[in-house]
């Protein structure tokens, strides 16, 4: 096979490179083009669609195109955030894949001058009864914990689904939140001809070579074990030093610009800095500190060794910068210079070994239109696990024990959720994570969500639901959305059905953000997520950051006390489409009702104001497993039972099954004083108290003991324990 095809470039792309260069590229140049023209770096199958997303808003400080998006939280401070995938590395080697996923997203955030203050993650694996899934889960959780715990950034929340379509191709999406003085933030554009280009942090080795093109931009398949050397190896201690070093350099105003080295290493960071600044950059690979002396120039340029940052520095300040690096015991080297050539030139000991126009390298990749086609029917499997005729009580217990619904304590207990002294709401104590910001006198809330099963049912409406779920989670803690970021995990865009899923999902994301007035300040796209059995569920993971004025005024998701009334609020009309119960019954099919966005937004505002005013004792949004699960979760967390009659939902046209277990956006379970709840417009459906969960819906009723419910909901702990031996170094 010819060299360019082996590197993932098509014949026509190669011809275009020759045309733009005016000659055949040499080895160094071809390696660099293949990475920057990969799907992972060039977004060539998604860029045209992403333009639809609204990205402007009065609170936006940094939007798409920077290392991370950022929004204004007042008093001269900003909150930065970004989500990124590390799916294929994690599927090949879960511990390092997930660890470096966290490392990479942290760098994106401190690259703009924000101190990382929290990590969240969104994970997808195959069903928990698969040995492979438990192995991947265990490795990914250890990896996320290893990196985040060691570097002192709390992991404050996240979400996990276990579904067959992720069996071969798991998803590991990591999110980082940063906090900065707005005036201290920095952009990635190189500037100032003659300024020095300084590489800081770890030395450069042969790890992760070709990660972006070989791993991230192709489907997984046979022989993936052989790709293990393309997975990078993380060193959180090195990152911790580089982080503190960079923040000190920025606080002292010593850097012109800063960029992290992620996928495609020096190639993409130098290319993107030059492109954003409309300048050229010369890099002398002979000056790059190496782990292995005999590395070829192309290897140095494409290495994805972790924990490295690239800065542009005025020549007079290079010594001071290097002294601060030395103080933090981190390497630094002046490896290049900003030029006015508009070219990226690679030198080795004075000899030019590569010379490419920045425009061709960074922005020259052709953008493709998709050829979407809707599937005629449900393309994924349907496996019945819940026997027909199972009664309502057993059904509720089965839903509470479903790994996607059950408590994730086993996971989050392995993460430091408190370092930094900002965590007001720890995992599973409220619908969204809440972080106090004493510097600006307020707090932020964060939620991350993306139920791929629903998106598979109908990509447009499923994506709208994911965004609404985040908005509802924020409302439950009294927060108002400031901005949204996303990570779009889809299958092979060159195939018609994944193309349709991607196209519809982005349209849905654009529409709901437009209607809610929430700007999309950044994003990441991960395509080619397929295994031998086909594509994953289309999984747009959306993460929303909101603001609340007073961190002391948030509501827990659990009931507060015996005797409180339980209210149902919002335009909740549950159906079984795409629900957990439909999955367990083996009844999944295409189709998902269109959410009523404006009505949901109105309900969110009502709940938000009520929480801020202290009018409710608890607030929980109705999500997976429907109203029955939402009520059970609020009871289990409180250790107090409840009694509710769901007749009101029957009057909205729901069957008893739909009323109990149906899902859909727009529903909130509130508890508190009856009069307060009624004043909010909530329907009073029951009362907190007792040691059982008693629900009635028409001719269906159920009673389960709180102990049994708790046992079912806590059952993940025992089932998740991997059979694999833990690694000795964790």
């Amino acid at each position, binding site marked *: 096979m010819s060299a360019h095809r082996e590197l993932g470039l098509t014949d026509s792309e190669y011809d275009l490179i020759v045309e733009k260069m005016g000659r055949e590229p040499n080895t160094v140049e071809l390696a660099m083009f293949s990475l920057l023209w990969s799907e992972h770096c060039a977004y060539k199958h998604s860029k045209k669609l992403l333009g639809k997303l609204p990205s402007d808003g009065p609170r936006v400080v940094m939007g798409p195109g920077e290392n991370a998006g950022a929004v204004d939280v007042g008093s001269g401070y900003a909150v930065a955030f970004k989500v990124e995938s590390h799916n294929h590395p994690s599927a090949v080697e879960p511990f390092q894949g997930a660890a470096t996923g966290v490392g990479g997203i942290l760098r994106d955030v401190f690259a703009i001058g924000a101190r990382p203050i929290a990590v969240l993650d969104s994970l997808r694996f195959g069903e928990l009864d698969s040995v492979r899934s438990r192995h991947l889960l265990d490795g990914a959780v*250890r990896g996320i*914990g*290893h990196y985040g*715990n*060691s*570097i*002192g950034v709390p992991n404050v929340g996240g979400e996990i689904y276990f579904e067959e379509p992720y069996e071969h191709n798991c998803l590991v999406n990591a999110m980082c939140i940063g906090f900065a003085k707005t005036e201290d933030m920095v952009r990635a554009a190189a500037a100032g001809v003659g300024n020095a280009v300084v590489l800081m942090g770890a030395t450069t080795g042969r790890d992760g070579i070709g990660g972006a093109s070989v791993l991230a931009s192709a489907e997984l398949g046979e022989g993936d074990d052989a790709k293990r050397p393309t997975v990078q190896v993380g*060193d*959180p*201690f*090195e990152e*911790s*030093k580089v982080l*503190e070093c960079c923040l000190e350099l920025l606080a002292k105003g010593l850097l012109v610009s800063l960029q992290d080295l992620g996928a495609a290493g020096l190639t993409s960071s130098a290319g993107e800095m030059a492109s954003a600044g409309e300048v050229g950059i010369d890099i002398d690979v002979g000056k790059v500190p190496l782990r292995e002396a005999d590395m070829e120039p192309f290897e140095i340029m494409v290495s994805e060794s972790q924990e490295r940052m690239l800065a542009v520095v005025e020549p007079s300040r290079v010594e001071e910068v290097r002294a601060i690096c030395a103080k*933090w*015991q981190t390497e630094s080297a002046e490896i290049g210079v900003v030029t006015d050539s508009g070219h990226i030139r690679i030198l080795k000991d004075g000899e030019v070994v590569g010379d490419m126009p920045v425009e061709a390298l960074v922005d020259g990749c052709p953008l493709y239109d998709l050829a979407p086609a809707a599937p005629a029917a449900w393309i994924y499997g349907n496996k019945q696990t819940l026997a027909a005729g199972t009664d309502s009580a057993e059904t509720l217990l089965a839903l509470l024990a479903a790994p996607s619904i059950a408590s994730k304590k086993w996971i*989050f*207990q*392995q*993460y*430091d*959720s*408190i*370092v*930094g*002294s*900002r*965590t*007001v709401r*720890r995992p599973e104590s409220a619908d969204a994570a809440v972080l*106090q910001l004493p510097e600006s006198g307020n707090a932020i809330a964060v939620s991350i969500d993306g139920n791929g099963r629903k998106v598979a049912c109908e990509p447009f409406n499923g994506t709208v639901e994911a965004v609404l779920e985040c908005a509802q989670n924020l409302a439950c803690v009294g927060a108002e959305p400031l901005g949204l970021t996303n990570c779009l995990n889809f299958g092979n865009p060159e195939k018609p059905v994944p193309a349709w899923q991607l196209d519809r999902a982005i349209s849905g994301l654009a529409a709901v953000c437009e209607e809610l007035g929430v700007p999309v300040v950044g994003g990441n796209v991960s395509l080619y997520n397929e295994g031998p059995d086909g594509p994953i569920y289309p999984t747009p993971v959306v993460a929303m950051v909101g603001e609340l004025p007073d*961190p*002391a005024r948030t509501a827990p998701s659990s009931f507060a006390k015996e005797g409180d009334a339980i209210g149902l609020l919002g335009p909740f009309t549950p159906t079984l489409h795409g629900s957990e119960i439909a999955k367990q019954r083996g009844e999944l099919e295409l189709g998902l009702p269109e959410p009523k966005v404006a009505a949901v937004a109105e309900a969110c505002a009502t709940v938000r104001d009520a929480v801020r005013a202290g009018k409710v004792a608890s607030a929980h949004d109705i999500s997976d497993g429907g109203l029955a699960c939402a009520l059970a979760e609020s009871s289990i967390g409180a250790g107090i039972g409840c009694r509710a009659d769901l007749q009101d939902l029957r009057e909205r046209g729901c069957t008893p099954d739909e009323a109990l277990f149906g899902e859909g956006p727009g529903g909130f379970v509130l508890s508190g004083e009856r009069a307060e709840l009624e004043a909010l417009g909530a329907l009073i459906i029951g009362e907190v108290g007792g040691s059982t969960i008693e629900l009635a819906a028409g001719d269906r009723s159920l009673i389960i003991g709180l102990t049994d419910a708790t046992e079912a909901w806590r059952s993940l702990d025992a089932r998740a324990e991997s059979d694999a031996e*833990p690694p000795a170094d*964790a």
Partner: protein
Amino acid sequence: MIWGVLQFPGSCDERDALHACEVVGGEARLIWHEDRDLSGIDGVVVPGGFSYGDYLRAGAIARFSPAMEAVAEHAAAGGPVLGICNGFQVLCEAGLLPGALLRNQELRFICKQTDLLDDRGDVLSIPLKHGEGRFYAPEEMLDRLEANGQVAYRYADDHNVNGSVRNIAGVRNEAGNVVGLMPHPEHAVDPLTGSIDGRKVFEALEGFAA
């Protein structure tokens, strides 16, 4: 009272410790690991984190830092020293406290709110978060520690999540001025983020300040 909080490469909880010292009514400043000068400092906090990446063994490298030499002198002179989590590990490695910390029984990192019992039997709600927090010492040493009143904190029943011998969560030296514990009192000073019982751990050492 003026607290000095050590900062090593890889420290994680030093800013939290600074804040906690201020909450309990003191002043606090960071002491860089290469700094030998503790003048003007009444008490020292060796904070949590992963000093030097915890490579080799938790706390094994940090104990050789210049700042730790100064801390040893400060401790020998009777000044208060509080080691939290990684700081406890560092103090054990430095020989300023007895015993050692091993990998948790379940071989997993764990982060959890726990109940501790102090000398007086008061229950303190304080979070812990560590992968290597299982206190260990030989039987005869444990007998001696108990006889000398050197067990400063124990996990309450059902709260010993790491498998520490005799439920020991924290110990002190013979003079009582050096205390180390695995749970994080600096993360228990603000009612909004959990509990305020951690303040008592700081306050218990104030009497040793010159």
